């Protein structure tokens, strides 16, 4: 066992939401362009498109509480040459208008970025109806869809610009909560390529979206209190998925960790890859297996096993069952 090498660290002094990064990326992408058109289903403020609206009022429409017409209109606009970005909460977009996304956007292969904000349990107090835990599963299954899941502000900004430039159907999954910066403004991101954040020697923890900061904390806890050296690899792109990155893992234990159901998201991406390349490692998928409920972000993550301590305990139990009780005692009262 060797100490994990940290290639990136959390910047807890800089805390912003991925939806804010999207708002910035949208403005950057629209600079000098006459083609970007933004639609929202009455969630202008929450999805951070107000600044776009103020700068380009002729290319912004709030369709009202009407996600289906938003998707159909987006497709119609895109068929005439616009690069369309349409925003709402992930439960409604693509949840409510999935037939439109499938038949009008994906089947027609049109230039529309579907922005599903407030995804995951992290949405918090609004409760189960507003916590999208199935959206990645829906969108990954569409043949022409790219699925992106940034972990921090800067990655969100970069992936937004790339998504618009692709001029194809893209799903961009964002979160409500403010989370620490992991990357700098100069970091380069490539769709289809994972980023190794920590290099460890005992196991690999794959993560996606805003659970990244909890993954990094879990890796620290595991080394400090259980002498387990765990790599952390972030997948900002779930489709195309960096299969080579997973196929090349040398460890005997691979864990996936996401604020999404364990069916159809990152866990399934890893399972599919491992099965197809004959990977001999054991896979453990950490994510949700039920609907959520109302609560604050931190309490929800703790209850549903998505906080750093729960993830670390899960990994320790799997890999060092005899050390589990002692590890649990050590980290129980730690304030992270």
């Amino acid at each position, binding site marked *: 066992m060797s100490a994990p090498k940290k290639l990136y660290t959390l910047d807890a002094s800089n805390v912003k939401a991925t939806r804010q990064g999207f708002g910035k990326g949208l403005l950057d992408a629209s600079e000098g362009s006459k083609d970007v*058109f933004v639609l929202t289903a009455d969630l202008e403020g929450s999805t951070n498109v107000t600044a776009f609206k103020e700068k380009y009022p*002729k*290319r912004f*429409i709030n*369709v*009202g509480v*009407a996600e*289906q*017409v938003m*998707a*159909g*209109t*987006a*497709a*119609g*606009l*895109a*068929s*005439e*040459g*616009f690069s369309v970005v349409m925003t709402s909460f992930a439960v409604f977009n693509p949840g409510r208008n999935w*037939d*439109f996304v499938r*038949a*009008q956007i994906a*089947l*027609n*292969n049109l230039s529309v970025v579907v922005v599903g904000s407030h995804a995951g349990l992290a949405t918090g107090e609004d409760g189960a109806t507003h916590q999208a835990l199935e959206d990645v599963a829906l969108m990954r299954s569409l043949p022409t869809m790219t699925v992106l899941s940034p972990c921090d502000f800067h990655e969100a900004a970069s992936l937004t610009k790339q998504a618009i430039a692709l001029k194809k159907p893209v799903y961009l999954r964002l979160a409500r909560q403010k989370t620490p910066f992991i990357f700098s403004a100069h970091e380069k991101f490539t769709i289809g390529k994972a980023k190794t954040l920590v290099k460890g020697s005992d196991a690999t923890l794959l993560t996606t979206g805003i659970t990244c900061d909890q993954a990094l904390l879990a890796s620290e806890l595991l080394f400090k209190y259980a002498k387990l050296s765990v790599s952390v690899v972030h997948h900002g792109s779930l489709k195309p998925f960096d299969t080579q990155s997973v196929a090349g893992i040398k460890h005997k234990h691979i864990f996936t960790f996401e604020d999404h159901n364990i069916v159809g998201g990152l866990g399934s991406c890893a399972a599919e890859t491992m099965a197809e390349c004959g990977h001999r490692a054991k896979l453990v998928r950490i994510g949700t297996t039920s609907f959520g409920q109302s609560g604050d972000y931190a309490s929800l993550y703790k209850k549903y096993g998505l906080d750093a301590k729960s993830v670390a305990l899960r990994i320790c139990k799997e890999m060092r069952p005899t050390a589990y009780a002692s590890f649990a005692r050590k980290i129980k009262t730690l304030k992270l």
Partner: protein
Amino acid sequence: MLRKKEHKELTHKSYELRKEILKMIYEAKSGHPGGSFSIIDVLTILYNKVLKHDPKVPSWKLRDRVILSAGHICPALYATLADQGYFPKSKLKTLRKLGSGLQGHPELHHLPGVENTGGPLGQGIPFAVGKALALKTRNIPSKIYCVTSDGEHQEGSSWEAIGLAAHHKLSNLCVIVDRNNIQIGGKVEEQMALRKLKSKYHAFGWNVVDINGHNLNLIYDAFRYFKIHKRKKPFCIVAHTILGKGVSFMQDDSKWHGSAPNKEQLDKALAELDKKQKKHVLFFDLKKRGIFK
């Protein structure tokens, strides 16, 4: 009003197109003849007298666009497009066959002249609204014509789009409703009544006219009114039609919404259409000669 000679020619053409529709559905062994027959008179006028388009340049930027929201009645569209010269008539017999551009429900990018993917009902008006907004934003003066069925007005998404179009004063948008009062389950007004469609559209902020959807003169006048009206409102033509119009054993029977004829039924229908076509043309000639006033 159409000129008498035009009226005669277009009547003749509408019967020809009906024959083509039925032959292609027979060949495919599946399809939707009933609605295809109820809308074909509207399409005949639209493509021959109203639409600004060039079949040799299907992507001409200044063309008018036709959205077929009721995608299942695509045999009517395909027959019309072939007649206009968008693709060879020989392709009509490939309807619904593997590898054919004539998909069972039309898809964008598959065939020249097809402007949208239709099939899931209630998606065409939203798509048409997007196109209308795009043209308005780019200051392109072309029109959007969206052909819908009455049944698809049971889909809530249609009404989302109807509201949005009026809110944005999309006066470049014309929706045509094939009001044949038939859906798979039977009569629309008995399954889930739409009641006064004209009043509903009006309440949503549209200009609306009701017409007999088989009267070529009235269809033509309705389209002309759309093109010249100055009000900043989208326009709806509620075309009252008969499912299966033209073939007596198909008319008004929900069975013919989505069934293909067998050989015997095909021959019987073609014979009836032939007879009616000759009779109508004869009628025009006799009228011209003053035999009928």
